[in-house]
């Protein structure tokens, strides 16, 4: 079966709780860099919940926008990498080969969503925190770019299980950590090439829009617009 992974983010449901970020950090061995480094703009999180304010106090209202890697169809980061460290894989994902990366950081400059993070230092986990690291991930040394992969290790596992059992991958079988965790269920992940999948249905929602669509990057992450009105 043809696979085109996509994610839908329902802004009506997002409460800005940040559970997705925590799940992502835990799943993907993302280093916690500490307050001082965060102040310098060196947060390593692959997913950020951007917060904007609408209106003036006391009418001000927070708007939350979870921003993972958009997995663009026409990814600007891919063309500028001089060594093909970032490329398009067979599922249409924007993949990253850490061990090929030389760290020119051009991809991060060329990403209009600024979702790529750089390893400014080598990161270590103190004992016993190193016990929590997932063995399914490639380690990243200093000087290497990294970013959201849609939890490619989970996708691989689901695909391998399906292959072992000699069947197609089922809808909802591959779920990134953020999607699995989201308490209000604002995130949805699936194969948009499958006409019967939930994501395909969701992508028909008239509220749909894509971030900075005018740039022509064709993101695979689709947002569902917040609706204004009573109870919201």
């Amino acid at each position, binding site marked *: 079966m043809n696979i085109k992974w996509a994610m839908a983010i329902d802004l009506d449901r997002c409460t800005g709780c940040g559970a997705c970020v925590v799940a992502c950090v835990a799943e993907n061995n993302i280093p916690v860099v500490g307050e001082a*480094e965060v102040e*310098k*703009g*060196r*947060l390593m999180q692959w997913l*950020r919940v*951007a*917060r*904007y304010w609408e209106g003036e106090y006391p009418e001000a209202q927070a708007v939350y*926008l979870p*921003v993972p890697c958009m997995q663009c169809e026409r990814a*600007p980061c891919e*063309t*500028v*990498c*001089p*060594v*093909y460290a970032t490329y398009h894989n067979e599922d249409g994902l924007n993949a990253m080969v850490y061990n*090929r*990366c*030389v*760290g*020119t*950081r*051009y991809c*991060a*400059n*060329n*990403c*209009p*969503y*600024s979702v*790529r*993070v*750089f*390893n*400014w*230092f*080598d990161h270590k986990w103190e004992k016993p925190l190193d016990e929590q690291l997932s063995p399914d991930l490639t380690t990243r*040394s*200093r*000087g*290497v*770019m990294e970013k959201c992969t849609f939890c490619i290790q989970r996708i691989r596992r689901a695909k391998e299980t399906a292959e072992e059992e000699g069947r197609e991958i089922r809808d909802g079988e591959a779920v990134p950590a953020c999607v699995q965790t989201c308490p209000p269920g604002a995130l949805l992940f699936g194969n948009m090439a499958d006409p019967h999948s939930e994501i395909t249905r969701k992508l028909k929602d008239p509220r749909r829009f894509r971030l*900075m669509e005018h*740039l022509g*990057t064709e993101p695979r992450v689709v947002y569902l617009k917040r609706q204004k009105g009573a109870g919201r």
Partner: protein
Amino acid sequence: MNGSDHLARTDPGALYRELSRSNLPTTKKWYLGVALLSLVVLWGVGCFIYMMKTGMGVTGLNRPVMWGVFIASFVFWIGLSHSGTLISAILRLTNATWRAPILRGAEAMTAFALMVGGLFPLLHIGRNWRFYYMIPYPNSRQLWPNLRSPLMWDAVAINTYLLGSLTFLYFGMIPDLAIARDHATGWRKKFYSALALGFRGTHNEWRRYHVASTIFAILIIPVAVSVHSIVGWDFAMAKVPGWHSTIFAPYFVTGAIFSGIAGVVIVMATLRKVFRLERVLTVVQFENLGKLLCTMSLLWGYFYFADFLTVWYNRNPEEWEVFRSYAADYLPLFLVMIGCNFVVSFPLLCMRRVRRSIPALSVVSLMIVIGMYAERIMIVVPSLARRNDPFIWHNYFPSWVEFSILAGALALFLLLYTIFAKFFPIMAINDIQERLFQTTDRKIGGVTVESIGMPHDTGKGGHG
């Protein structure tokens, strides 16, 4: 011009002794200078090793400002390198004979500025020890560099330019190395003999030399233009507001030549003072360089005006935020840039008195070099600091490690230049001799034959 001393003035031996004073006895001062420069270079290298071992986090870089002063310096040094090509190639083709005394110095500057500039991308990358991934070498995994990336275009263009300008520098030096061989003793004689490739100055050799140097001059111009266009495209190809602009390539070439000429003025004023070359490096050369600077300043101002006007009128919010930061966080840098490159320097350069005063012109040139450095930072940093998503906006200030490496790079350039001046003829003896021949009246028997070129000609008189 007094005709009686024409033979003495154009005697190669005498000229060699006068023009290559730098090659002759090595003074204590020279050793002291080299030692001092080497120390600064070593400090820079030490800081680089520290950065490599610890991680790029020791710089002031962050997200979204992933490129900082290293990239600005890269653009700056590559820009400085455009001087030599302009002076030896473009002025050669336009027959400007006044360029003879500044020829070699400018060409050497091209080569060394390129070497220093070319180091910066390697210093800047996160895993410097894996830089060879960018070289198309055969490997078992059959991985090749990505030629769609402007960085690869850069690597190709800069290597071509470096090889081209080194060849240009060496080729132009062959007749002078022959003169040096004829007048040197000891190990220097052997050294120059090997380098002069047996040049004897026969008619045939000169004819070939002239044909080849014209071909070189024509070939190097497109290379020079392409190099800085591609450096401009490193930015213009990106989806970054403030970078993504069609004006960048021609504008970068202009800026490069602008800073390059300013660099040549500083280098020439220094050489003139240090090696007492007042007789050959006259006010004529400086005034002409001053006129070129004046033109380039005007052109630079025009490019900026055009770029600002379109963004200001259009008010595309993404670009407008970048421009607004010029008036806020980056105002000091912006004022240095605009002031040094145009507002202050242009009126000064319009004054004949300034152009004809070597100290004044040197000060203006220094100002332009500083202004152009500020301009490169202005290109690299604010555009990144005000990316599309306001949530991640962040400013950048370089750390002591970056400053140390920049100082090391400057010292490396000066060191390379000092060593070059010690071992090679820093003045183009043959070209100067040719010019002296043309501008000196000659006595043949009892008759004085007037010179065919005027002492202050700017390329219109004589055969060039």
